[in-house]
Structures are given as structure tokens and as C-alpha cells.
């Protein structure tokens, strides 16, 4: 079970899709020999999780690109055979942290009491979760009841998450903070370039520059920053 959990964490898909039920009512492993082999060597290495992570991450399978290839899509669309890395949605913890980091609002303080994720600025591992409930934002992004046994989180994508991105004060605040940085630039093209470096850690393409400049002719830099924070690229882990 340790092997399938660590594997699932790296590949976004477990070898056994019911990772805490290996009994007759659980799913069959997709790669039984792999599971046997990893489990046996995991034990032989003294149950070292560090060894297990390293073994998986140094494999050729792990180091594949996630880009779709037509022959792969044709013969195995759901990537059962792992002909590519599984692209996936970033989980809410990493997503919220990265947005706070981009806007330079992230409070890196460690230890101490938990706080609300909609108003707080600390990392999402400090999110307040109680028996009675927790933030809607966490719920929208698939955090489940802390009281229940949840062997894995199913990542979903739905319009309610999009409403959070479009309308929440949290995202609007980060966009406002992000736009402050671009104000020191004077030319619109420089503003666009500066925000691209901040949000995506890369340069804007020619097409993206054009789109950005044309948008800035009729909208504010805050609105532009929010549009960038709303893109797939921010929440997609290729």
C-alpha cells in the first residue's frame, strides 16, 4: 500500500485505484508486476520512503514529458500504460500558495495557529480545518471531510471553481498587489512583459504581447493581472 500511495502521489494515478482496499472489493492493480517489485524492494530497503521516492523519480517513466503524442492518444487515451506523464490540476494547497507567492503576499511564517484561507496569507498547510467545517474554497477544490477516511483526493474541475477565480475578493486582492509591480513600467509592452515574468516565470510570446496590449488599451492593469491569474497555465501541472 505504501508503494501505490507514493506512486500515485507522483503520477496522479495509483497502481491500485482503491489505494486503501486491496481486498476482493478493491480494484485490480494496473501494473501488478511493478507493484510486487516496488513493494519487495521497498521492504528490502528497510521501508525507506526516501529510497522509494528516489527510485520512482529516477525512472524513465517518471521523467517522461506529459505532451500528448498522436500514436499514444490513439492506442491508449487514458494513459493506462504510462506512455507519457499524466498532466494534472495543481492541488489547492500549491495553487493558493503559488498565487500568494506571485503577488508577493505570501507570509512564510512557520508554526503557530491555523488561519482562514480566504483572509490569511500564510501557506495553505496552515488552513483552518475543524470538525464543524472549513472554508468553501478548500471544499470547492476537493478537500474532503477531515473526519472521514479518504485514501486519495479526487481532483475535480467545475464552474464553481471558476467563479472563485473570477469573483472572489481573495483573487482580486492578489491581482491588485500584482498590478502594483507593473506600474513602475511606462510602456504597455513592458507592463505586459513584467507581469508575464512574475506570473509564469517566462517571457510573453509575440501573440501574447499583442493580446495583452490590446486589452490594456481598454482595461486596467489590475484586470489584466487577474486575467493572467485565471489562466489554465497557473493551475495546470504539465
Amino acid at each position, binding site marked *: 500500500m505504501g508503494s501505490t500511495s507514493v506512486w500515485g502521489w507522483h503520477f496522479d494515478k495509483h497502481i491500485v485505484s482503491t489505494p486503501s482496499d486491496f481486498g476482493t*472489493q478493491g480494484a485490480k492493480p494496473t501494473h501488478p508486476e511493478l507493484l510486487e517489485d516496488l513493494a519487495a524492494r521497498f521492504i528490502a530497503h528497510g521501508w525507506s520512503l526516501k529510497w522509494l521516492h528516489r527510485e520512482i523519480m529516477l525512472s524513465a517513466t517518471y521523467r517522461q514529458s506529459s505532451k500528448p503524442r498522436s500514436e499514444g492518444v490513439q492506442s491508449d487515451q487514458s494513459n493506462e500504460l504510462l506512455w507519457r506523464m499524466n498532466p494534472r490540476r495543481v492541488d489547492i494547497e500549491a495553487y493558493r500558495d503559488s498565487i500568494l507567492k506571485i503577488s508577493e503576499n505570501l507570509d512564510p511564517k512557520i508554526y503557530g495557529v491555523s488561519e482562514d484561507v480566504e483572509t490569511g496569507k500564510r501557506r495553505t498547510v496552515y488552513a483552518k480545518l475543524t470538525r464543524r467545517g472549513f472554508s*468553501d474554497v478548500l471544499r470547492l477544490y476537493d478537500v474532503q471531510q477531515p473526519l472521514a477516511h479518504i485514501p486519495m483526493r479526487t481532483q475535480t474541475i467545475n464552474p464553481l471553481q471558476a467563479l472563485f477565480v*473570477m469573483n472572489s475578493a481573495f483573487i482580486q486582492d492578489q491581482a491588485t498587489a500584482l498590478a502594483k509591480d507593473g506600474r513602475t513600467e511606462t510602456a504597455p509592452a513592458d507592463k505586459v512583459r513584467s507581469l508575464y515574468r512574475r506570473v509564469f516565470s517566462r517571457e510573453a510570446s509575440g501573440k501574447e504581447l499583442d*493580446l495583452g496590449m490590446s*486589452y490594456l488599451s481598454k482595461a486596467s492593469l489590475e*484586470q489584466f493581472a487577474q486575467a493572467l491569474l485565471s489562466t489554465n497555465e497557473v493551475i495546470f501541472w504539465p
Partner: protein
Amino acid sequence: MLGLAELLSGAPAAPHFAPKAKHVILLFMTGGRSQVDLLDPKPALAKYAGQRPSTVDLRTERTTAGLLPTTFTFKKYGQSGIEFSEVLPQLATVADDLCVIRSMFTTNPNHEQARSMFHQGSMQISRPTMGSWISYGLGTENKELPAFMVLSPGFGGFVTSGFLPAQYQGTQLNTIETSPDKMIRFLRNSQLNTEAQRAQLDLTQALNREHRANFGADAFLEGRIASMQSAFRMQFAAMDTLDLNKEPQKIRDEYGSTPYANGCLLARRLVESGVRYVAVHYGPGQP
């Protein structure tokens, strides 16, 4: 832009088969009375009352007595002769409009697994939900609202589309709340008017299409583009459809004022506006 607009609309493509069913409302009453007391008389239970059949393995978590028959009496109703217990006198009057299925069972005695079995046809929580299959098979009639909606007090309904594309996933509303913008968090934009918001979304989606062209076709990227589009339209449609104040007071009194009653009334409003599948949950989780 026409083909693209269609693609981005979040609407599932044309149905695979011409649908006979138009809509589905699922009322899932978690923690309800046993079927043996309602719709499923089991005469053998009375015959063997108190006994423990030796050929059947009846291991239970706590010590239990023998077989327990219902204490209610059953009668046949309507032309179909469906049997109802005395507990359901109202439902019995519409017997001929109902189909009662008595053949469902699970191989696990726990609530949670039974719930998965019911909604996903399997005890494995990774399978698509019934509403996902139905919206996948029948498409949608309303482009402003998701085809598959789940109404639940708090969050605990089944919504996953499993291995089906992300756009067939259920959208969950909280029926503890009664005003649309509370039922759906972040429904209204406090900063931009519709036109400015539209322009902002157009930019985001143009960038998303650039990104997708560079990466390649991907279910997640498609699904999120569709969900942004759907969310934009939902802001306006939801304010109207989910507003129970638009119902006459007489109707609201007939339904009652509990979260479940609100869910039932909303389910009706949603299917009337073209939503394909609405699941109404009585409670947020297992009893």
C-alpha cells in the same frame, strides 16, 4: 467563432442516442426507513421470524437476534398491484405512475459503500456518477447552467465524472442557504460590470487557447475552458432560476421550508429550465 463558441459552451456534444427520457430528478433520502417497512414486503421474514438460518453466514458487528419482519401491513394498489405499506398512504394513490425496483443490493453492509454503489454503480469511489453518465449520454438543453446538478445541505453529494471528461461532473449547491448568491459562493462580481467582465474572460480564454495549442489536446485544458465559460453564464442564469422568491407563496408553503424542501422545489425549477439531471440529497453524508 461559431464552431469554437459551441466547443467552449461547456455543453456536451449531441447525444449518442435520441433520448426518450427528458430529465431525471433523484431524491436520495439518506437515513430513510428500511425498504422492508415501505415497498418491499418479504413474507419469508414473517415465516422465519426470530430464527437464524443455519445455512446463511449472518455475522454481524454486534450481537443480533433472529430475522425481524416488518410490523406494518401491506396492501396492493392500482392496476399494477404494487404493494405499499400503511406508512405510505399518499404515495400509494399514484401507484400506477411508479416503477418500483426491488432487485438492488450491495455486497457490503456499510452505508458509505452502499451510497457509492447506488450513485456510481460500484463501491469504488473513482467511477463516474449516474448524473455524469446521463449528461454524457443525453447532452444538455440549457447552456447557462450545468447539465448535472447536486443539491445538498452542506457538501456531501456524489459529483465525480470519474474517467468521463471533466465537463460531465456534477455542480453542487448548498440547500441550507436560500438566496442564490449564498447557495453558490462567489456568484457575483463586485468590481466589474458585465461588459468589462466579458472582455476579461475573452482575454483569459484567448490565452488559454494559445496555451492549449502549444501543449496539445488535453481533457483537463478543455474542461477548464468550458467551466470558465459555464461559470460566466451561470452568474446570470442562477440568480434567476435559483431564486425561490419567484415561486408563489402557496407553492412554497406546500413544499415546506426545510433544506430538503428547498432542494425539491429547486430541482423542479432546474429541470423546467432544461437541466438534465438533478440529485437532491436529504443529508450531507451517511446517516
